[in-house]
């Protein structure tokens, strides 16, 4: 059974939301933290509800709503969300109240909204959608797990359309804690120069991307989602290479059929070494492009890559800001996304132009 990406939307540190050109006006930022560009939420969410929502809920709900609106769908057969960190702002607010008030009675709002399934639940609530609803919270596998769940629902014909996406926020608190772990660049760097100046550390990011997947083709479809797999803590680049070849083989695809590889390079020389090694083996002579200089590094960043791949296949253009250097070869039919998060969580996604659109 073929699975199609019928619609997609993304709120990110780039101009990606609404009717905007495809990454032609990259947002530059000097520092080590990229923040989402927030749209005018009042156009998308009822003002009364909006007042109660924290930033991650607004971002997730607005992205999901825009995705559904694009496909004119208001009762998806499933709503599946991936978030590694969940609602950090509400968690921090409630925890601060508990500590500062020494456990005297606190208002429950932040606690209620702190649960990891809040975004998925709010989407269901707004749509009055009683269908399948799930939230995955596994670090660098959160979005990938959600996608797999969606694919299974569609393949089982439990649903014809499934809304699946990810959302993660960076708060001042989480940034400052993650920075203490040495994740980010110490010296400021422009995000567009991230790969030109390899160093220890990357730039922090955040964002949301949602997709409406369907087991039916319909005109306007972005792409076909052929497959997804994850692997955990491969010992070395040889094992990663083996996994990549096994995935392609399972998809009955040869590496020579891949027109473009989107990799998760994040400018941290400790992490990019793996992609460089694969460039000399399985990915040799393949056009490789990047995305984390646009959205920053976070555990569900791969959803930004999928949004980018779907949009490349729909528009037939590869934005030069991704590092694509073969401007004359824009006939991209098959894209492989390979991402790893901190060497632990590796994922592969295969996306292609839908067979119906080739005719």
């Amino acid at each position: 059974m073929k699975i199609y990406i019928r619609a997609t939307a993304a709120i990110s540190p780039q101009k990606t939301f609404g009717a905007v050109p495809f990454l032609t006006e990259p947002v530059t930022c000097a520092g080590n933290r990229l923040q989402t560009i927030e749209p005018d939420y009042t156009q998308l969410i009822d003002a009364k509800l909006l007042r109660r929502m924290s930033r991650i809920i607004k971002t997730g709900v607005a992205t999901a709503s825009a995705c559904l609106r694009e496909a004119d769908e208001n009762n998806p057969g499933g709503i599946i969300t991936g978030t590694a960190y969940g609602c950090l702002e509400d968690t921090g607010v409630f925890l601060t109240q508990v500590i500062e008030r020494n456990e005297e009675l606190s208002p429950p709002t932040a606690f209620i909204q702190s649960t990891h399934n809040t975004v998925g639940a709010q989407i269901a609530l707004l749509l009055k959608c009683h269908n399948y609803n799930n939230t995955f919270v596994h670090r660098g596998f959160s979005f990938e797990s959600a996608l797999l769940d969606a694919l299974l629902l569609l393949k089982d014909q439990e649903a014809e359309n499934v809304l699946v996406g990810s959302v993660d926020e960076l708060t001042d608190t989480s940034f400052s804690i993650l920075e203490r772990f040495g994740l980010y660049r110490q010296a400021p760097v422009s995000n567009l120069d991230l790969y030109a100046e390899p160093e220890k550390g990357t730039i922090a990011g955040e964002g949301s991307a949602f997709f409406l997947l369907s087991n039916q083709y319909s005109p306007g479809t972005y792409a076909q989602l052929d497959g997804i797999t994850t692997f955990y803590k491969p010992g070395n680049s040889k094992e990663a290479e083996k996994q990549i070849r096994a995935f392609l083989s399972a998809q009955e695809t040869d590496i020579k059929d891949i027109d473009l590889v989107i990799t998760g390079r994040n400018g941290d020389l400790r992490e990019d070494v793996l992609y460089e090694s694969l460039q000399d083996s399985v990915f040799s002579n393949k056009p490789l492009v990047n995305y984390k200089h646009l959205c920053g590094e976070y555990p569900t960043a791969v959803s930004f890559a999928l949004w980018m791949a779907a949009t490349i296949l729909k528009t037939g253009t590869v934005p030069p800001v991704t590092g694509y250097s073969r401007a004359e070869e824009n006939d991209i039919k098959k894209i492989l996304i390979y991402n790893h998060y901190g060497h632990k969580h590796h994922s592969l996604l295969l996306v292609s132009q839908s067979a119906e659109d080739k005719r």
Partner: protein
Amino acid sequence: MSGGVFIAGAGAITAIGNNITECLSAFENEQPGMAEINWLGTAHRNQLPVAEVKLSNEQLAIRSGLPAHTSRTALLSSIAAREALDDAGIADFSSLRTGFISANTVGGMDVSEKFFAEFLSNPAKGRLRDVVNHECGSITELVADQLGIRNYISTISTACSSSANAIFFAARLIRHGILDVVVAGGADALTKFTVNGFNALMILDKEYCKPFDDERMGLNLGEGAGYLVLVSDKVAASLQKEAYCKLSGYQNANDAYHQTASSPGGTGSFLAMTGALQRSGLQTSDIDYINLHGTGTQNNDLAEGTAIRRLFGESYPPISSTKSYTGHTLGASGGIEAVFSVLAVKHGILYPNLRFKTPMTELGLVPQTSFRKDQLIRHVLSNSFGFGGNCSSLIFSKLRA
């Protein structure tokens, strides 16, 4: 896609026992696990009863093999998951694709809240080792690494239905031939964060909880972990001992009514139970026991009871809430109660719903109040409902029902 998903092993640690045998003995002796707060460092000590696991972090660390400074959630998870895996007795994993799908609601919050108190006073303070496993997925990974499971690892968090969804997802991965064996369930330790959160919602009973009673006053929080080992029919056939039972039905639905409250008609619960029955091809009359979500709050019990009345009518089977023993273990509850449901099928057990006196005036439902074993129990329905309207039901069936 193959047919059956079988339960080959089970493990649980709760306030009523550190393993399955101890839990069953507590049920039989009608000894609930609630008490004054002993381990959790909180201002609510001596004010709110909770159902804590009786071992200290140091004792849990020895049993689990993880360091004592690890989140208590990981310690609990490790012990129950190991018990389940040992119980399954699968001799050789080398040729099997194995997964660990776990659930929790607040990750390593019990230790990150210690970090946060210091961090608030000075952002350069707080030990990083106390916050490094804050994420829900980190807890799963600590245990997966210990168990040596690498083929597929994931974590689900849908509030109080989390681990039912983990079991459900595991079953689908097996049915699709993606995995052969999955350890699935969930864990949650008590934290100041959750105790104060539920206290802020004003749904904690200051006495021991009374699920499904007309005079119920709220829930008691608990902690623990519960896991099942789910296997494909092929693996089931190769087991040294017979599988416990089959997972024959499951359904996930959303109440879509309110972020925390259930709809008065229990729409989500009704859809979850109905869907699970349809999937299993069973009639309501085939269900011999319902392990209720039964938290003891006004709202949950009325909504769940209404949905049961709507679905089962006058002839409802024995029902009970084992939360009257274990407290509400949140992200672990679906896993723990799935373990109890599996044991109910295997040993013909009906668990008592403790402290029940008066049926809810609106519904008149009377739960099972005494312990019974060696009953004929063909199919057990287990309910798990959570914040965000997430409702899931599982059905466990005798191998030859």
